[in-house]
């Protein structure tokens, strides 16, 4: 039977246009937030100066340094990390068919924290300055240890899943078990750590976008960028998974491969972000839910919208974290958790449609 007598309904075209509009508005807001982030801080830089500096026009060297060397790396880090975390969260929720899919529920964050704690203990990586500030003496090694553990955790979950049929249940339960194991490991190390090491371990877990400089940002982009392209290219396939495992298989989708590759890439993206910046919670969990509520569960729109809003949210939170207790800077992870938890509870109370 041929269904060749149909038309594309105008209402559907309008519906698609409204979704595109949400993505465009979020992108514009992100651009605005980016310029605001470069402008605001302990030393105010007028917005006009920021725009001139971005366009390569001549501005005072003081402003040039503040915008390009101090605030720009942090703002770009926040944008890339926010996009990567939200996108990975959205993909994890899709492939696991579980609203709780995020780097936290899968134990990736816990594994990274364990890796960092291990490096602080083994390398004696924490020192205390005369002002009482804690610094990590070997940030690169700590980062590498955190990354290695996060990737190992993701690899272990994938390996177990491959063995047991790559079902969402296996992935989530392995993640929960691994998170508990890593938390136990971290507590074990903390118990034997001296006060400086303990402070360094705790300090590392505060997610902070100021830790990354251009080489780290380049690496973040080099991993997040291609992964994002892969996710966006497979957006339609994630829709078939949402329609049910059997339906997806009957529509010709290799669900097992789609799940494993999606899991691998989303874990890699979150592992590299967490390793460089520390633990930044709730972006990966809350943003996809917020967007699902706003524009529905069609991944063709949900993924780019989550990416843009994650970027916007982390950049906004980061700017706010720099300003709230100025001249002291609050770690952005504290703020995202403060904002994220009530928003998540609100979404749950408002109705099941978000999940």
């Amino acid at each position, binding site marked *: 039977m041929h269904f060749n007598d*149909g038309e*594309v309904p105008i209402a559907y075209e309008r519906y698609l246009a409204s979704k595109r509009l949400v993505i465009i508005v979020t992108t514009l807001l992100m651009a605005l937030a980016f310029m605001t982030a470069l402008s605001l801080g302990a030393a105010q830089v007028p917005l006009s100066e920021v725009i001139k500096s971005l366009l390569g026009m001549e501005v005072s060297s003081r402003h040039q340094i503040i915008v390009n060397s101090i605030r720009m790396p942090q703002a770009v880090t926040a944008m890339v990390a926010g996009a990567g975390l939200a996108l990975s969260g959205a993909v994890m929720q899709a492939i696991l068919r579980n609203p709780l899919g995020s780097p936290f529920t899968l134990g990736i964050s816990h594994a990274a924290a364990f890796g960092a704690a291990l490096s602080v203990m083994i390398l004696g990586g924490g020192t205390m300055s005369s002002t009482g500030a804690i610094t990590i003496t070997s940030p690169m090694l700590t980062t590498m240890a955190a990354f290695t553990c996060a990737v190992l955790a993701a690899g272990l979950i994938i390996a177990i899943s491959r063995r047991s049929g790559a079902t969402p249940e296996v992935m989530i339960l392995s993640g929960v078990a691994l998170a508990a194991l890593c938390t136990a490991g971290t507590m074990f190390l903390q118990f034997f750590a001296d006060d400086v090491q303990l402070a360094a371990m705790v300090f590392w877990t505060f997610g902070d976008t100021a830790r990354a400089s251009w080489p780290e940002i380049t690496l973040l982009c080099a991993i997040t960028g291609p992964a994002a392209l892969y996710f966006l290219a497979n957006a*339609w396939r994630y829709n078939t998974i949402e329609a049910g495992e059997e*339906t997806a298989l009957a529509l010709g989708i290799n669900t097992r491969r789609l799940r494993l590759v999606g899991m691998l890439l989303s874990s890699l993206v979150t592992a590299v972000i967490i390793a460089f910046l520390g633990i930044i919670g709730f972006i990966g969990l809350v943003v996809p839910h917020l967007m699902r509520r706003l524009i529905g569960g069609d991944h063709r729109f949900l993924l780019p919208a989550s990416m843009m809003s994650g970027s916007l949210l982390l950049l906004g939170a980061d700017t706010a974290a720099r300003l709230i207790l100025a001249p002291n800077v609050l770690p952005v992870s504290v703020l995202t958790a403060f904002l994220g938890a009530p928003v998540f509870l609100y979404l749950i109370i408002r109705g099941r*449609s978000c999940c």
Partner: protein
Amino acid sequence: MLLSIDKLNFSYNSRPILSGITFSVRPGQLVAILGPNGAGKTTLLKCINTIHQAGEGTIFLDGNDVLSMGREHIARAMGYVSQKTEAPRLTVFDAVLLGRTPHMGWQVSRNDMKMVDAALHRLELQDLALRYLDELSGGELQKVAVARALVQEPRLLLLDEPTSSLDLKNQVAILSLLRQVVDGHGMAAVMSMHDLNTAFRFADTVIFLKNRCIHAVVPCCSVTATMVEEVYGLPVEIHHINSYPVVIPLDRTEEKSCPVQ
């Protein structure tokens, strides 16, 4: 033959579920698979679609060996409607559009969208096009699943209890549409069912499954009371109304009185 199945076996954790299944389906045939709960009806449909991998036996579709075909190739040839329809936060239009996946490139084309619109009209779902699936009733969801399988443009449709959530009017509407789709379009459909009378009314042939095996393959008009009794273990009578067989169970223990006014 459109579909030829020969000596198909399937086991789950070394427990045999299907054994020695052999039958074939011609283009234009609507086949109903009947049998008691646990007889293997759903498993058989899943084996044909290779959602479950058959242990032994062969499945040929249009002369091609299904067991060696790629998943996407199978999806272009066979549509499958599962017994349980999920309700993600997708609109009815998008959920039906999923059926075009095996024929799509990287993007949804306007032609895909036009086909969806036509299918929605055919199933009288056009007013629900922009409603989210999680706001629909069970019956509406079932119609969406059928619409999705239809826009897949398969040669063979496999439907697992396609009318289980539907009211009488929608049962007749869906099965009439399936009849229409199958008649004269070179297609065929195999559906598992529990409602014997509806199956006899719309199908050409019924396959009775019992204890993992095929008990009988008969044209609907040749079904006998003994056959039904043997499969379901319940005495029945078969009457013919307008030349359609109608099964009446004879177990009177639960019978209620129905006074004629």
